[in-house]
């Protein structure tokens, strides 16, 4: 027998056989128990950047077109950000350093701990070493913004050695069908019930 104990209206324990659960009764459920009210995905917004971007900036600059704006419905909710970036440091002269930084508005978030004079970031583009191929970088970060205002999440990037970082493209010559690859990058924001 699946039901193991009947001790009153609020004391039924055990397992209901799967065949005894009717879809009609499940359809009547209008709310989840309070105990599992958190963790639900309330909204999802995403942006895809399909054009190329390149920079030689040594200071963090916006990766134009790779941002997403979201307005939390409650200040206790969290925002889960995922960003997928195809990029590379064009290191034909042996310079590899570059960094991505996740930013909310003008606030840098998801930042590494300080370490001497190292430049800090959230992630790093791939380096070119013998071939102009890109590396994809994935950034996942759960933010607690404590806000119900519209929030803009974006990616900034900078080179540490004044060379070129390319995003969404592997080679500078559009007519190069051998190495001239083009890709896309995305950023997605999920509002999670807090």
């Amino acid at each position, binding site marked *: 027998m699946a039901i193991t104990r009947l001790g009153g209206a609020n004391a039924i324990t055990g397992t209901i056989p799967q065949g005894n659960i009717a879809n009609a009764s499940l359809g009547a459920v209008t709310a989840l128990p309070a105990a599992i009210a958190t963790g639900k995905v309330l909204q999802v917004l995403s942006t895809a950047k399909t*054009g190329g*971007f390149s*920079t030689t*900036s*040594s*200071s963090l*600059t916006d990766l*134009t077109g790779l941002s997403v704006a979201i307005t939390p419905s409650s200040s206790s909710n969290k925002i889960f950000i995922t960003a997928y970036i195809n990029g590379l440091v064009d290191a034909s002269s042996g310079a590899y350093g570059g960094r991505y930084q996740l930013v909310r508005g003008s606030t840098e978030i998801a930042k590494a701990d300080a370490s001497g004079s190292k430049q800090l970031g959230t992630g790093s583009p791939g380096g070119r070493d013998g071939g102009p191929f890109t590396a994809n970088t994935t950034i996942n970060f759960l933010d607690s913004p404590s806000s119900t205002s519209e929030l803009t999440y974006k990616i900034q990037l900078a080179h540490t050695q*004044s060379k070129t970082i390319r995003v969404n493209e592997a080679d*500078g010559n559009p007519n190069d069908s051998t190495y001239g690859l083009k890709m896309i990058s995305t950023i997605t924001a999920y509002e999670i019930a807090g």
Partner: protein
Amino acid sequence: MIDIIKAIQKINPNAEVSVNDDDINQITWHNGTTPISKADIEAKMAELQAEYDAEEWKRNRQAEYPTLQDCIHALLDGGDTLTELQAKRTATKTKYPKSGA
């Protein structure tokens, strides 16, 4: 065409700049870099493209030459193997003559 940022770096190797969507109208200059005019950038792009095009013979030869491994084998083996390899190289050179030659 050669891309914009490559042309800018040829004009000013220390330029700090961003280019969006390969669009000459979407250039941002950073950290005090003196902007370069669109006309100068476009002229440099045309110049670099001409240089790139002029070396097509070299890229074609490199694509069809025997591999380095084949060359080593031919040099070690000598005889007909080396003669055949040299003939292949000569045929490739004839097929793709040097620009202006």
